[in-house]
């Protein structure tokens, strides 16, 4: 058989096998997810997946939405936009979910045209990039937290509030990835508004081996604060250590992904004074919502004593999904992507039991976070401010 025929026949057989499944039963709400279980972001993907899945299971157990059960299906997308798009399309074709979760901004952007015109499902992702927080261009997307720009805004406000006599000097230290560059234009603007001097913008490749020339730049400019963006662990640790070696009194700040407890352990004594913005409370804190999280974890995986920030991100996203469904059902409307997206704007001052501040969705984002400071002796982050709402 000619190869083209053979290929065509094979594809034909596959397509018949993969034909879209019949519409799911009415009392089941399907949530699909493309998670980065492997690849560069695996540590986050596994945790987000666990958090999201746990909360949906909890919602089923406690019957949080009367008459509806949540069905969670996920696939690995390896933090690769091409694989993620394939994953998204496959899940949509096979399970017809009404809610989807994506692994990255890249996926969100790639899938946006079809999401808006064809798929029309409620969509959230692991990234806090401001690009997707625009209801006009991305009506079905929301961010389960503040954007990176918001986080920068919160940090800059903290700096402005706690300045001494002189104009505060800040350096931005970020990676040359989407993740790193996303909030910088807004941050520069905001710094100017707040009267903060951005003395240096240092860019490196994520996970750079040698940061000497960058640290020397810091030495030259001697900023009061350095804000990291776009890194998780490396080279933050090296930079902080080297800067201390040079005797600089700079204080360091980070945003969500560099605020996990692990960084305190890695830095040891050098962690003292490190602070940053976290949109959620930590797993070890005292709040009813967090206690419920710990109780559930104790039940399903008793030998895991700590869950990182990304787990809480997944959990909170699950909370938003469930709350949106609950409101749509309470209003007597069918559970569709459009209705779910529309109901987001009605969420005001929603009490999450301390998982985060009282949530009001503005422009499809839950823009609230808190400043935390590292306590090297205790090895934890402690709250250093109240819940701050971004504008």
């Amino acid at each position, binding site marked *: *058989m*000619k*190869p*083209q*025929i053979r*290929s*065509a*026949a*094979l*594809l*034909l057989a*596959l*397509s*018949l096998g*993969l*034909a*879209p499944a019949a519409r799911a039963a009415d009392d089941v709400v399907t949530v699909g997810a493309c998670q980065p*279980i*492997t*690849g560069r972001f*695996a540590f986050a993907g*596994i945790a987000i997946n666990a958090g999201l899945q746990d909360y949906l299971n909890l919602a089923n157990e406690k019957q949080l939405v009367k008459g509806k059960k949540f069905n969670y299906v996920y*696939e*690995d997308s*390896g933090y690769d*936009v*091409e*694989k993620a*798009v*394939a994953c998204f*399309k*496959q899940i*949509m*074709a*096979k399970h017809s979910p009404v809610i989807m979760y994506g692994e990255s901004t*890249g996926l969100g*952007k*790639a899938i*946006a*045209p*079809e999401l808006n*015109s*064809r798929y029309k499902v409620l969509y959230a992702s692991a990234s806090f990039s401001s*690009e997707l927080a625009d209801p006009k261009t991305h009506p079905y997307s929301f961010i389960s937290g503040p954007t990176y720009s918001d986080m920068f805004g919160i940090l800059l406000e903290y700096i402005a509030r706690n300045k001494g006599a002189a104009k505060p000097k800040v350096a931005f230290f970020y990676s*040359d*990835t*989407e993740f*790193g*560059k996303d909030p910088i234009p807004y941050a520069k603007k905001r710094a100017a508004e707040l009267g903060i001097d951005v003395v240096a913008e240092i860019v490196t490749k994520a996970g750079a081996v040698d940061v000497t020339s960058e640290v020397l730049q810091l030495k030259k400019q001697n900023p009061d604060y350095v804000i990291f963006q776009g890194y998780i662990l490396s080279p933050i640790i090296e930079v902080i250590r080297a800067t201390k070696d040079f005797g600089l009194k700079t204080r360091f700040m980070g945003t969500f992904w560099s605020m996990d407890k692990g960084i305190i352990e890695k830095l040891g004594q050098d962690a003292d004074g490190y602070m940053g913005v976290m949109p959620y409370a930590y797993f070890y804190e005292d709040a009813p919502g967090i206690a419920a999280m710990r109780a559930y974890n104790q039940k399903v995986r008793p030998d895991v004593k700590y869950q990182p920030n990304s787990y809480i991100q997944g959990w909170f996203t699950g909370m938003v999904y469930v709350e949106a469904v609950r409101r749509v059902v309470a209003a007597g409307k069918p559970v569709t992507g459009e209705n779910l997206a529309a109901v987001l704007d009605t969420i005001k001052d929603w009490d999450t039991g301390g998982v985060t501040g009282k949530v009001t969705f503005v422009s499809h984002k839950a823009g609230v976070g808190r400043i935390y400071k590292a306590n090297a002796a205790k090895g934890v982050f402690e709250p250093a401010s109240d819940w701050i709402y971004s504008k």
Partner: protein
Amino acid sequence: MLIGNYKETYASDEALFRTPATRAWMGAAAVAAILFPFVAGDYVLYLANLMAVLALSAVGLNILVGFTGQISLGHAAFMGVGAYATAILASRFGLPFWISIPAGGALATGAGMIVGAPSLRIKGLYLAIATLSAQVIFEWVFTNWTSVTGGIRGLNVAPASIAGFRLDTDERIYFLVLGVTVVHFLLASNLRRSRWGRAFVAVRDRDVAAEIVGVNLFRTKILAFMVSSYYAGIAGGLWVYFTKVVTPETFPLSLSIQFLAIVIVGGLGSIKGTVYGTVFMTLVPEVLKAGTGLARVVWPAAQSYLFPLRDVVFGLLIVVFLIFEPHGLAEVWNRVKRFFSLWPFEK
């Protein structure tokens, strides 16, 4: 068994489809290809589009590596040049696809000319490393020339449209992709039997002898680079309208390596080998995915091993093919064909 197949003119001997049987099968394939999108599911259609674009680009690489024997580790970068050119013309200047895609191809050809220039002085391994540097440098430009390329954010592109008819679903873009791809495959097959094609092969086999016979080495090599990057550029342009977004992370070194793998597994120097190679390398991960999906029933953790397993299988395929079947799938197919055409005789 094939009998009664004789030719009376040079032209008919050099024809692309030589026997009535071949022509009949090609016709049937064409019909199947046209009917395909109406029966296939969403995801399969997406895969088909993906494979067509990848195959188009891979054919370009095959012209450079298989026909002309030059090693290129930077093929994805040329695709990126074409993609970005198309995206910029489409999104910033509003040009329609039938201008922006060829323009992308043209710009990629220019890039190929520049990257191929060192082939005047260096060959083999060193040329391979030069192309590797080109890949790295181009990626850097894509990321950092923000004013033109949109930097790390990349560019979003509106779907292609013909007089208001928008090609915004996989079904619709399929016909554009299919048409462009088939035409370029025929062109490539035609190239092989032309004067330039013979020059390419001569340079690959014995470049000193070729030079003695009168083949201008430098011009031939540059032409090979240009044609190869033209194909990559067109494929990049199609890619842009297919995925509607382009970022610097879309065309990394690993994509260049994937193309090389496709070309080698398919068979160096064989156009239909490239098609087999693309289909094979795209479907093997799908089979793996189905496998781990089934395994998940008894072994929940199987899911997390899919991507590393894909890497291992990818590497194994390359190693195994190189050791046991260096001429690739095309050779396997040829053996099968020979068997049937000689049957019931054996050799």
